[in-house]
């Protein structure tokens, strides 16, 4: 049966090449647009180097630390001090690891030659290397003891090492960060900007930066420069981590006289980040889907209307044939099934072309589709089974939308009428 439908579908495609071409292309473009939207979401969600445990992570991004004066004379959104980090984050016991970090641009130079171009640097703790899975080309990360001692050591990205030394075999060499000498302890494979928490071109212990360690008396030592990322043992621990975290925050606040810290709704999960939430401006699922859903719906409806016109007229041409089939005992369900199957061949073909097109178009248009320009993309971000399933799903929806109504209509037609009305009636 299915074989028969397939044969017929291929026959129909060949019969009217222009219209078939248009149907396939229309579907392909629609699925391409849908898949681009989906892939952009996917990049924010899935695990890849070096953020390959994203499903177990909780985030407190920059600006998520909220400090309020007890009499509400002052409040501020910013980051936290080392003291606050120790009290509220390092003390957590439920998670596997907690890492604190901050970002800053530094000018890198060689001892012999002063340079002024700035590169993004992450100032991190030793747990950072456990939370993220960096691949070391040379050397190693700095140890916990080095971190505690505040040794001036730096891990370079491959690109930066090559830019300054022409090779990656640079462990033990010296490089200046803002005119301060650091010893290179390791070189890692480059990180894509899409992995925004791990991303930098060099990583140093934050204990080596006086500005990070400095306690500001203002805001009772709460305000500082650090952000946090938590790695849970399992995603199901998120709730218990949040509970323990809130308890720690409350406990810490009892030690303060004039100010209270809260972290708004932080830390947030990857899914919450995807929909644009940070703790300080929380986006509900409803609002996110209202916007994204409307866009996806539009991308599907537009071509569906197109294809409807085409399927409608091509089915009408075959009224007589369908009349005959019904006269020989085909049920309404058979007819609907046949039309959907035949149309399905076109949509699946279009869907496949669309998926391929989206994988080609996204890297080309990434500069305006992704949040930061010059984001490098890898296959592990794009080519995923989930992407295939989503593309298939949307193709089927499109098929149902574009052939459903004509199939239903034609199947309900009386046999006599269908047989009588020959080709020219298009009413």
């Amino acid at each position, binding site marked *: 049966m299915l074989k028969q439908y397939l044969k017929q579908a291929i026959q129909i495609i060949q019969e009217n090449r222009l219209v078939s071409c248009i149907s396939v292309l*229309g579907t392909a473009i629609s699925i391409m647009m849908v898949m681009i939207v989906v892939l952009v979401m996917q990049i924010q969600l899935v695990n890849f180097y070096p953020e390959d445990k994203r499903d177990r992570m909780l985030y407190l991004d920059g600006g998520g630390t909220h400090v309020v004066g007890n009499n509400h004379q002052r409040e501020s959104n910013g980051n936290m001090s080392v003291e606050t980090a120790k009290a509220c984050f390092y003390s957590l016991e439920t998670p596997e690891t907690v890492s604190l970090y901050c970002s800053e641009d530094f000018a890198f130079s060689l001892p012999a030659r*002063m340079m002024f171009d*700035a590169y993004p640097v992450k100032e991190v703790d030793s747990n950072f290397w456990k939370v993220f899975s960096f691949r070391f080309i040379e050397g190693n990360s700095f140890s916990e003891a080095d971190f505690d001692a505040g040794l001036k050591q730096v891990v370079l990205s491959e690109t930066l090492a090559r830019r300054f030394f022409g090779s990656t075999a640079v462990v033990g060499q010296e490089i200046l960060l*803002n005119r301060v000498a650091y010893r290179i302890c390791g070189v890692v494979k480059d990180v894509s900007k899409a992995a925004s928490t791990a991303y930098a071109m060099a990583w140093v212990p934050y204990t080596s930066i006086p500005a990070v360690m400095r306690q500001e008396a203002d805001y009772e030592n709460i305000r500082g420069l650090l952000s946090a990322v938590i790695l849970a043992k399992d995603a199901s621990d998120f709730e218990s981590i949040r509970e323990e975290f809130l308890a720690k925050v409350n406990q810490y606040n009892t030690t303060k006289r004039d100010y209270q810290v809260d972290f708004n709704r932080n830390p947030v999960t990857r899914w919450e980040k995807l929909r644009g939430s940070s703790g300080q401006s929380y986006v509900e699922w409803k609002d996110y889907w209202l916007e994204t859903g409307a866009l996806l719906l539009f991308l599907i409806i537009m071509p569906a209307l*197109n294809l409807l016109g085409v399927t409608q007229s091509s089915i009408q041409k075959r009224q007589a044939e369908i009349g005959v089939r019904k006269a020989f005992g085909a049920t309404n369900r058979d007819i609907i099934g046949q039309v959907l199957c035949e149309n399905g061949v076109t949509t699946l073909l279009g869907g496949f072309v669309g998926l391929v097109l989206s994988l080609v178009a996204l890297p080309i248009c990434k500069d*305006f589709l992704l949040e930061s*320009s010059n984001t490098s993309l890898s296959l592990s971000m794009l080519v995923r089974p989930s992407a295939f399933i989503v593309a298939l799903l949307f193709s089927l929806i499109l098929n149902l939308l574009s052939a459903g109504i004509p199939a239903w209509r034609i199947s309900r037609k009386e046999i006599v009428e269908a047989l009588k009305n020959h080709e*020219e009636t*298009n009413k």
Partner: protein
Amino acid sequence: MLRHIFKIIYNQRKLNIFIFLELLLASCLLWAISDSLLVDVYTQRQPMGVDVESVYSFHLSVADEAMSSDSLNYRKTAEDFLQLVENVRQCPEVEAASISVSAVPYTWTTSWSCLLAADDTTTSPDLCQVFYVMPEYFQVLHIQTPEGRPVYEEAVRNPGEFIISQTLAEKLFPGVSAVGREAKYGNFGGDASIPRKIISVTKPRRRTDFERAEPVYYVLWRNDKEFLDLCENNSFLPTAFDFLVRMRPNFQPSAMADFLQKNSARLSSDNIYVSSYTPLNKYKTDMLKGRMDNQKKKTALVVFMLVNIFFGIIGTFWLRTQSRRAEIGLRAALGASKQSLQLQLYLEGLVLLALTLPLTLIFIGNMLLADLPDTYRLDYTWWRFVFPVIGSYVLLSAMILVGISFPARKIARMNPAETLHYE
């Protein structure tokens, strides 16, 4: 003729309804997108009030030893800072250099405060952006008075503390000149009891290319002593300040790295030094990225819609000419020329589009009633109504004509005898 076409369209309503709905959806969305793009482009073309071309932000660092020590002398580091700025001004490539706070264009670091006319006791003031600057700041960013004179000269010539933007001047002193009048801080920002003099008024200043000019004002440090006192009293490090440098017009951005290297000795003063730099153009690109991306995404959607319309029209009309071969053959046999047959097809498409117009207008009316179009940046005047509507319909018509031209060409090749053969 038209009536006849209406009749044909009506008789084929079951087929036409889908393409009609598609055209309706497209015309409404196309209007919405072109309206928002129009507002964006209009706003983008307004003057900014500052000129960031060839201006660089120099980033300062304080030596680690000084940072780590408990007895950091804030007055001393501030003096070093002033010395450093003076060193930079001496470079022949440099046109001007200035110190300021929260005043770098296209960055997120901002200060907000209130300003009131000195004799005003009734108004509750709105927050507006405030820039704390040295007079050279106006030189660096080429800020002008509404008449086009450099504000810097007025700031140097006249004593006083405040310089306000035209937008704020019109709010505080409607209908009269603000220059020479006195103003005071609102509920916070500084001591409200001391009125201070307004030296000059600047052209309206906008925060980004996509925003309307909002009221802003500048507080001037009249001399080095004021600046040093500020640093000492508030424990401010030089890193808390902006250090903006304007290079001479013939200076190439690519020469910046060499310039800094050549002058690296001048770029430090005891415990503080210039560590890196950022061209303000980079801040601009970064800050506008979201809005520019949004424009590109909207354009992509428009292209998507147009391609769909093209496909929809070509498909529907192709099949239509096929199933109406007999009718077309008959018309040809009865003396209709090929041109008139083609014209009829084109007209059918355009009339179909025209039928969406009343519904689109109702849609626009509803959007306006719901106050959804952005009327804050651009008032809703007749031309703002006319251009997007005409633009959308012209684009759609073009797509329809191109789409129909394929089946129309087929008609031209038709042989009446052969088509009648189907009858």
